[in-house]
């Protein structure tokens, strides 16, 4: 269970495109690839804005004109590196307390003129803090709710699969 102690998520993908294009699409053209069902705005999404500089804002704009800023650009080093904050709380609201936000670092490494490796790390997840403690408490009943749950639910899944 080493995973449970880690406070970061890492993922890598290789794209058949030059590093500069990969960087630009990732940042300024974010709306073109961001999963459509993963917006924190309640109104239908009109656009996503990524201000391409350190200190820039990242925000969604709704069709009704409402805005939701959910990240701050911390490092902007085109075309190799970008770091932005993840200002979304465990209640899935915008986190006003910046001490309780995690961050995402993305590195763009040219493997060939038209091939780029993209390494993404979403780290400091523990900074989101107390919410998880509360959640653990909520489910950590005296009978040891967690004990054996995983194998049990796996068995259950097998049982319900035709």
């Amino acid at each position: 269970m080493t995973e449970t102690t880690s406070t970061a998520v890492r993922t890598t993908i290789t794209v058949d495109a030059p590093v500069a294009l990969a960087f630009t699409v990732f940042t300024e053209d974010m709306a073109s690839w961001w999963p459509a069902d993963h917006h924190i705005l309640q109104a239908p999404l009109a656009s996503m804005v990524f201000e391409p500089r350190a200190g820039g804002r990242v925000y969604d704009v709704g069709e009704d004109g409402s805005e939701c800023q959910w990240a701050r650009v911390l490092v902007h080093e085109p075309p190799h590196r970008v770091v932005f904050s993840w200002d979304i709380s465990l209640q899935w609201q915008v986190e006003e307390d910046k001490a309780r936000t995690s961050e995402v670092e993305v590195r763009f490494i040219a493997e060939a003129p038209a091939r780029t490796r993209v390494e993404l790390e979403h780290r400091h997840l523990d900074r989101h803090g107390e919410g998880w403690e509360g959640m653990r408490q909520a489910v950590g009943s005296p009978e040891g709710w967690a004990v054996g749950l995983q194998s049990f639910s796996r068995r259950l899944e097998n049982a319900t699969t035709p």
Partner: protein
Amino acid sequence: MKTYCGALSALGDPTRRAIFEHLGERPLAVVDLAALVPVSRPAVSQHLKVLKGAGLVRDEQVGTRRVYSLDPDGIAVLRDYLDRFWNTALHSFKKRVEQLQEETNR
């Protein structure tokens, strides 16, 4: 200015969010949840399926009842969730970049 920042994916739906919050208080069966939220039992089951798919909720058979609860390890939930999220996002990103690159080459 007032912002309308609701939820992300699985928690985007208000009813689903309510179900998630009720489960934060204690483990519950579908019938219990249906009494707490203004939707039908089948709708509750559907929401639970989505929450389970997102790794936010687990279920356990207790006698004749299937009881739902939040994942016992909070940070693992967030990790699973973000892992899934970034995988989906990066694959979508790859598709977009490569499509643009192909257009440039044409």
